[in-house]
């Protein structure tokens, strides 16, 4: 008889599971089997394969190097590191003992490429091809760490060898991201070895659809796409809708500037999303689903495609799944790059092949969605939470978070913060803790100014709001929103008027153009902000801006328009003095708005070296060895090159 090559293979001829002849115990059998017969040989084969897939510290089995090959690390050269590692292992004769696994995102994008040595759990960051030989030699031959390549804390300067010791990771609670970076997302057996598909197996074997919905309700899970609607309740609406045919959709049209948590999940743990959708489809009574993913995420789409194929081959997608009579078919639709297609009615229009424009609700998708059928739509992170709730129970899930916002939330921490990357923390952690403890504070010792949370629909919160617990209701009250979870950190060199203008430009460009206030109102708001940044602002502009903001908020058709004014309203609320400085004093306190800057040279400090004049792209600096240099402010294009060039601090920006 043939030996088992992968965990999915039958242990012997007594195992009859195929997609056509499904076995209800298949999933449990893979990790605790065989169940239908007692054979020590079969058991040994299974546990041997499992041990390889689930390395335990201190054991010689399952030696592997997990290289982050998510989009961030891939662009920092992760694939070159993978080939170098493979070559080096072969050269040192270790290629049969040590596996190199390209995984999904570890989340520590700032420090990429990162790799983890298993089973020792050692983490190496910013790995270059040249480091590979030393790492392989020391780790696997000498069983030592390469001290000088370990991550160093930017604040303390101390090196840290494992995730448990790296501040960025130590304070996170990784539930949804738990597998990301530790399994090969292109192999379904790795997901299964890490308790994958246990949730759907449990639902199909032990629970009715209503019980599944009750479990999700009890967990307190709320939609992770932004609005925070209770997931179980949403499912129950669609379940109760009349009609045989129902659809479920995974919204993977992640489009907020600075948000990439859904990409991380899709790239790193696609089966978790499939399993979440399976559970949702079973609960709702849907037999068909779509993953709507933006085309700008090719790796996420690739991993999802592989995962769907593998799940189909294993009988986990298709008809009569695990001999339960439950059918579910899943396919992918790639979006064409419209931000508004993240809005659920626009998204469904796009799947139907129409222009992605939102529709008025009601009817809600739960009554009339895709092709007029009851449809339930959740985002990637929401779906990926579901298997954990089913497998570990609602009570386990609800231990995390606050009273009304349960579980963990992934944030994409970006901007002027030391540790950028994906951060998963229990709901209710303070922004200060996320930014300063996990994020390691502001880059280059600069002062914190604001954090933009919730993307173009969110708001900018100042230092005095940093102790707010991050949950849906608190942030909304503060004028921001959890949104999809983008956290853009800004330091003192950021101009808040300019930031408001940036986000409004985004919303205006991405407005679908259907309703008047969003299409025309955001344009006029942007024009006012643009005028202010150019020093042409008028005293009454702020009132007009606020009035327009309220009209756009209260009269727009969809969430895009209703929330587009948030960055303006929140900056006006917390940073009004900056707007006033632009309008009244014609100055930009952060020295960002070029039209409001003047560059001069302090004749006292000028050493007459001429470096600034040579560097000036507008050739507007004159002087010589005897005369101090002078900037012709009429010709100056305010690029700041002279300021950066001068070694003596003689160039003054005001």
């Amino acid at each position, binding site marked *: 008889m043939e030996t088992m090559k992968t965990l999915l293979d039958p242990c012997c001829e007594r195992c009859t599971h195929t997609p056509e002849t499904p076995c209800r115990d298949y999933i449990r059998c893979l990790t605790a089997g065989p169940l239908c017969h007692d054979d020590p040989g079969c058991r040994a084969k299974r546990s041997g394969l499992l041990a390889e897939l689930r390395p335990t510290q201190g054991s010689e089995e399952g030696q592997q190097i997990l290289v982050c090959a998510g989009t961030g690390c891939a662009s920092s050269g992760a694939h070159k590191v993978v080939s170098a590692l493979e070559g080096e292992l072969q050269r040192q004769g270790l290629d049969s003992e040590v596996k190199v696994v390209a995984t999904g995102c570890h989340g520590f994008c700032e420090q990429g490429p990162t790799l983890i040595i298993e089973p020792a759990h050692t983490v190496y960051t910013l790995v270059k091809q040249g480091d590979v030989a030393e790492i392989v030699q020391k780790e696997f031959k000498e069983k030592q760490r390469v001290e000088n390549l370990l991550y160093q804390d930017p604040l303390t300067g101390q090196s840290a060898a494992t995730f448990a010791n790296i501040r960025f990771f130590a304070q996170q609670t990784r539930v949804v991201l738990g597998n990301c970076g530790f399994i090969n997302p292109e192999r379904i057996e790795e997901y299964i070895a890490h308790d994958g598909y246990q949730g759907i197996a449990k639902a199909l074997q032990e629970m009715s659809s209503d019980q599944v919905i009750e479990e999700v309700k009890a967990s307190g899970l709320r939609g992770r796409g932004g609005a925070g609607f209770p997931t179980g309740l949403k499912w129950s609406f669609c379940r109760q809708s009349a009609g045989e045919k129902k659809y479920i959709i995974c919204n993977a049209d992640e489009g907020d500037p600075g948000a990439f948590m859904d990409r991380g999940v899709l790239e790193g743990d696609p089966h978790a999303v499939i399993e979440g959708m399976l559970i949702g489809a079973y609960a709702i009574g849907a037999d068909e689903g779509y993953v709507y993913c933006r085309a700008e995420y090719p790796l996420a789409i690739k991993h999802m495609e592989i995962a769907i194929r593998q799940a189909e081959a294993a009988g986990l997608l298709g008809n009569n799944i695990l001999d339960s009579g439950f059918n579910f078919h899943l396919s992918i639709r790639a979006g064409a790059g419209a931000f508004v297609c993240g809005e659920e009615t626009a998204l469904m229009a796009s799947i139907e092949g129409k222009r992605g424009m939102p529709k008025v609700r009601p009817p809600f998708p739960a009554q009339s969605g895709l092709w007029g059928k009851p449809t339930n739509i959740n985002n990637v992170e929401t779906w990926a939470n579901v298997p954990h709730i089913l497998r570990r129970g609602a009570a386990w899930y609800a231990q995390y978070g606050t009273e009304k916002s349960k579980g963990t939330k992934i944030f994409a921490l970006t901007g002027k913060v030391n540790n950028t990357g994906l951060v998963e923390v229990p709901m209710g952690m303070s922004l200060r803790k996320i930014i300063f403890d996990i994020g390691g504070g502001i880059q280059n010792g600069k002062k914190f100014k604001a954090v933009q949370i919730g993307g173009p629909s969110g708001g900018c919160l100042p230092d005095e709001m940093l102790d707010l617990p991050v949950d849906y209701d608190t942030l909304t009250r503060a004028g921001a929103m959890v949104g999809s979870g983008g956290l853009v950190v800004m330091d003192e060199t950021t101009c808040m008027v300019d930031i408001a203008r940036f986000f409004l430009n985004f919303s205006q460009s991405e407005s679908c153009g259907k309703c*008047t206030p969003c299409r025309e109102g955001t*344009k006029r708001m942007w*024009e006012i902000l643009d005028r202010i940044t150019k020093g042409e602002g008028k005293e009454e502009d702020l009132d007009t801006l606020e009035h327009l903001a309220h009209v756009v908020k209260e009269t727009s058709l969809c969430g895009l328009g209703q929330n587009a004014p948030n960055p303006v309203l929140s900056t006006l609320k917390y940073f009004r003095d900056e707007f006033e400085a632009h309008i009244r004093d014609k100055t930009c306190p952060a020295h960002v708005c070029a039209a409001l800057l003047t560059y001069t040279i302090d004749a006292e400090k000028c050493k007459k070296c001429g470096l600034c004049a040579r560097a000036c792209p507008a050739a507007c600096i004159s002087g010589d060895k005897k005369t101090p240099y002078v900037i012709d402010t009429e010709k100056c294009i305010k690029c700041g090159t002279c300021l950066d060039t001068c070694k003596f601090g003689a160039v003054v920006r005001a």
Partner: protein
Amino acid sequence: MEWITLTIDGRSVSVPKGTTVLQACRMNNIPIPTLCHDPELTATGSCRLCIVEIEGMRNLPPSCVTQATQGMVVRTRTEKVREARKTILELLVANHPLDCMTCQKMGSCDLAKYAYEYQVTGEAFSGGERRQLPIDDSNPFILRDPNKCILCGKCIRACEEVQGRSVLDFSYRGFNTQVGPAFNLPYAESECVFCGSCVSVCPVGALTEKEMVGQGRPWEVKKVQTTCPFCGTGCNFDLNVKDGKVIGVTSNPEAPVNGRALCVKGRFGMDMIHSPNRLTTPLIKKDGEFVEASWDEALSLVAEKLGEIKAQYGADSIAALSSARCTNEENYLMQKFMRAVIGTNNVDHCART
């Protein structure tokens, strides 16, 4: 029918269940401005001019797509509602040419009507960017000025839902959004059949009947309801008559057969009325030349010739082909004439396939 009672502006009103707030207001003579709404088209709630305040609802919901419910409390005239409507109108006017004096739509323009009502002068946001799009003058029937378009989308829905052509849709995004055929082709190069349904629903001067441009103002024109002579369908429309002359055709929404729908011939073919090439008397060919004749003369000649042919070759040597433009009655008479007078069943007409 189940009735519900709601309060609008302090008045208690009863309406059938399933009525929208807009319908409830209009049934009770409470004015609500609308630009994208049309009772014959799907409601999209896109212009946002019909917003009202409803107790217990967040924001300002559009009345055209909000169902009236039992006990609902609606306010249509509060300061907040009026201000928001005025701002929406200001936003539309800020991106709309102010050439009303020469605009064909003057006098029947909904935007101008509401601008007047809400005192929108065009000064708000007046320094901002305006569209500068080329005018589509590609065809003899419809003049399309996209700069005047307020993107209400009624033309798109009329094309899709009334005519079933789906030639038009939105393109581009945000401030650059436009309406037009695929790839923004001129109408002449598109799949357009020039039924003019889009023109009939346009609330502003973006789509106008080209032949009527410069020919008269709405208040100078007398509308004469008539039946289209082009075919036997019996469509009704309004002849627009100025100084005793037909300057064009507009839909009559009350037309019993066709509503506002017309075909290219009915809507744009009436220029034949004043055509110098039109025949006004019968013509008889004499010595190779057509010569004007009286009806008696012409009919006598036809009768004489038909008689001769029948006598010489038999009744079945004669056939009659009539026109689909004729009415049922005319076609009935034609076959009766052929069967009873000529004595043949050789009858047919041009629209048989």
